[in-house]
């Protein structure tokens, strides 16, 4: 049986960031990385651009074979972990092989949720999470005249834009009354919605799909608002859920995701989890949340790797902050922090611009903009450090980018 000191399951952002952190501390310990994709590591986030053809599939690899060699990592691709014996510290692969490990990182991310819509299982549809998914969509693109996208989250919106750019008539169906409800309020969302409407994308908001059936080569979708949509391409983008099926019977505690403490340790000795698969403390209250975004995966992976390698510089997870950047039809929307955790101290919106600043006790809790420049990374750090802004409050509200840069330069540059 193969033995390895560190076993990393998954090969995306959380996994790679953990690997790098381990190698910073432990140059020699044996590392094995296993991924179910038969591909070099890539990011799900780049996939909309693989769909559109902007990114060639062979150019999106985050690391290559030489890198694994240089870092002395055994890279096993095209093999999923199917079962875990955490007491014996062994993982079973879909190839039938078993691997004995000293320390294990679960970085298996998330996978699309299929909503319980009558008939969905019987029609042809697409999802978008893996490179395979993206290449299938890319292939279907030229023959797509009418596309229906279920869900107006980031995945759905990215896909809708690219389908529209490829010339398809696109309809997005969303239960919520607005798009990207997790990141933006009604005014901000309406700027985004207007941009889509201007490009001919139809948004059916506050509508639920009640039935799917096969119609010709494609699918027919019926909503509870009475709309009937014919689609030669149906994309289900109704959210994601952590991939934890292989943990059944392992003793690793799973709620919605793998429950972890502040150094990403799971409930069982020798096991850590990071990224979309992990359920870790939120920043605004202590409850454990899913915060399925790329920057969190990078950060959690680093913490997990440092903890696994016994790096004394490891700092506890400060808590998940919702944040995102969203580019649509050449415009930029940025969302950092919570809309609800404080009171709005500035808000203005016109057809093209939007800025909202939320503070609590003179501390920033959130800042949201469309086509307004500020540095999201600097804002995130200001939130995490709970910096008291009382002495610069007016300046911050007036010119957040400049004031934040000054704070950064004085405090941590």
């Amino acid at each position, binding site marked *: 049986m193969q033995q390895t000191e560190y076993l990393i399951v998954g090969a995306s*952002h959380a996994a*790679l*960031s953990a690997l*790098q952190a381990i190698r*910073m501390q432990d140059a020699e310990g044996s590392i094995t990385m296993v991924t179910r994709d038969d591909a070099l590591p890539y*990011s*799900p*986030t*780049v996939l*909309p*651009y693989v769909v559109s053809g*902007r*990114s060639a599939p062979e*150019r*999106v*690899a*985050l690391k290559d074979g030489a890198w694994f060699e240089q870092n002395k990592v055994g890279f096993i691709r095209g093999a999923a972990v199917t079962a875990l014996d955490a007491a014996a510290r062994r993982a079973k692969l879909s190839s039938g092989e078993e691997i004995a490990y000293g320390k294990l990182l679960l970085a298996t991310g998330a996978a699309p949720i299929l909503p319980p819509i009558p008939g969905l299982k019987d029609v042809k549809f697409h999802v978008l999470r893996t490179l395979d998914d993206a290449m299938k969509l890319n292939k279907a693109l030229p023959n797509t005249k009418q596309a229906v996208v279920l869900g107006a989250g980031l995945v759905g919106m990215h896909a809708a834009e690219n389908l529209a750019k490829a010339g398809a008539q696109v309809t997005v169906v969303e239960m919520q009354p607005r798009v990207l409800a997790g990141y933006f309020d009604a005014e901000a969302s309406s700027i985004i919605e207007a941009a889509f409407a201007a490009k001919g994308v139809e948004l059916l908001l506050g509508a639920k799909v009640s039935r799917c059936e096969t119609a010709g080569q494609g699918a027919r979708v019926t909503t509870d608002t009475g709309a009937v949509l014919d689609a030669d391409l149906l994309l289900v983008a109704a959210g994601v859920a952590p991939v934890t099926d292989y943990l059944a019977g392992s003793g690793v505690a799973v709620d919605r995701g793998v429950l972890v403490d502040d150094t990403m340790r799971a409930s069982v000795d020798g096991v850590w989890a990071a990224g979309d698969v992990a359920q870790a403390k939120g920043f605004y209250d202590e409850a454990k949340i899913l915060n399925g975004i*790329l*920057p969190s995966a*990078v950060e959690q992976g*680093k913490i997990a790797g440092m903890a696994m390698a016994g790096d004394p510089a490891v700092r506890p997870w400060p808590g998940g902050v919702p*944040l*995102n*950047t969203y*580019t649509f039809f*050449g415009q*930029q929307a*940025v969302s*950092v922090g919570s809309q609800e955790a404080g009171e709005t101290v500035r808000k203005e919106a016109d057809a093209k611009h939007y800025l909202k600043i939320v503070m609590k006790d003179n501390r920033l809790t959130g800042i949201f903009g469309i086509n307004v*420049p500020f*540095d*999201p*990374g*600097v804002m*995130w*750090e200001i939130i995490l450090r709970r910096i008291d802004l009382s002495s610069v409050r007016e300046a911050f509200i007036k010119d957040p980018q*400049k004031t*934040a*840069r*000054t704070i*950064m*330069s*004085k405090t*941590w*540059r």
Partner: protein
Amino acid sequence: MGAFNTIAFKPEHCDGCNACMTACATAKTGSADIINSRIQVVADGDTFELALCRQCGDPKCVANCPAAALAKDDASGVIAWDGSKCVNCLLCTVGCAYGGIVYNAAAGHVVKCDSCGGDPACVKACDRGALTYLTTANIYNEVGDLEDLFVPGLAGCQGCNTELIMRHTLRRIGPDTVLATPPGCVPGMGSVGYNGLTGTKVPVFHPLLTNTASMLTGIKRHYKRQGREVNAVALAGDGGTADVGFQSLSGAAERGEQILFICVDNEGYMNTGMQRSGCTPFGAWTSTTPVGERGKGKTQDAKNLPLLMMMHNCEYVATASTAFMEDLYAKLDRAIDASKRGFAYLHIYSPCTTGWRFPSAENIEVARKAVETNFVMLWEFNPRDGLRLSRPLDEPRPIDEYLEALGKYRHLEPEQVGHIEATVRKNVEQIRGLAEGRRAAMA
């Protein structure tokens, strides 16, 4: 991974002229609009702050990029952006907590500093001295892999400059060396060893204070006769060089012996309890020039040892400081080379935390101030080209900045400071005269 060059910002020299931003914007976009500058100086009242990519060692922008469009260049250390891969997702700007990579509306994508391929336009445009391009990393890349020829754990004082000098010089000179270390801090901290083991990885011997240069002469001649090419090097304190050791030194220099004599000048006999030497400057406290009701520190000026050595018409003479390592290394190279033809003498200033009384973390700053106030001048000499200044003597910083940094000058009265100022002025004129004399002679 090697060490890399970097752009350094000294806000105290910045006056907000924006020349750097104009230069950057022009170099990168052809338009002078500072909104396009990759370096952003931010005024905060009377002071200035900076947002600029740090070319991180563990770059979060890279880790956050889903498209592999960002990568650290192994050779330059610059985080390079590949426009053919970028998908404009802006996640790099979430990762960066320094405002180092930002979306630029005119360009329609993220932009960041690329150090202009090693010749940054902003630095060239800054004539206030606020921006400098530090290339000292080259030293590390060149010599980082060379073996440290002293053992770990030498018992120098905390923050000792002499230990730095020892390790740096021998590492560069290399293992084909016989080392002489007359009594002083160099052997005192353990380089000659204990119980039959040496503190060096090269042969080392411990001559008397008086005969270092003559013993080294004998050793060098012996090896030469055997047909072996060996560096004969002395690492001596200023007492062992300027006072007790001077007659043998002067003799070896006059005979043109092929040795390299390095004086580690900490301005006194520090190892034995901080007594004055011929190199102790006027006004300085030492244990034999005490400060009290009558005493006010040393009452004579220091002798100018490197100038004395120059008058021997040695093959090579130079002064150096650990605050200017590139200069020090270049001089070391020339000194080693010269010692194959004749006598080479290198005078390295070594601020002494214990004997000069300043915090141990400030050694290099003290060394820097000594040079920047012209208290110490950096120059080199060879018989063909005469004396050449290594850095200009114009616009020195006020001498007070140096004197106030040191406990050994704390008692100084205004007349004493006046005397020191006059001495520095005189020394500067003397060296300047020699440097200009060279020019005149060569014209």
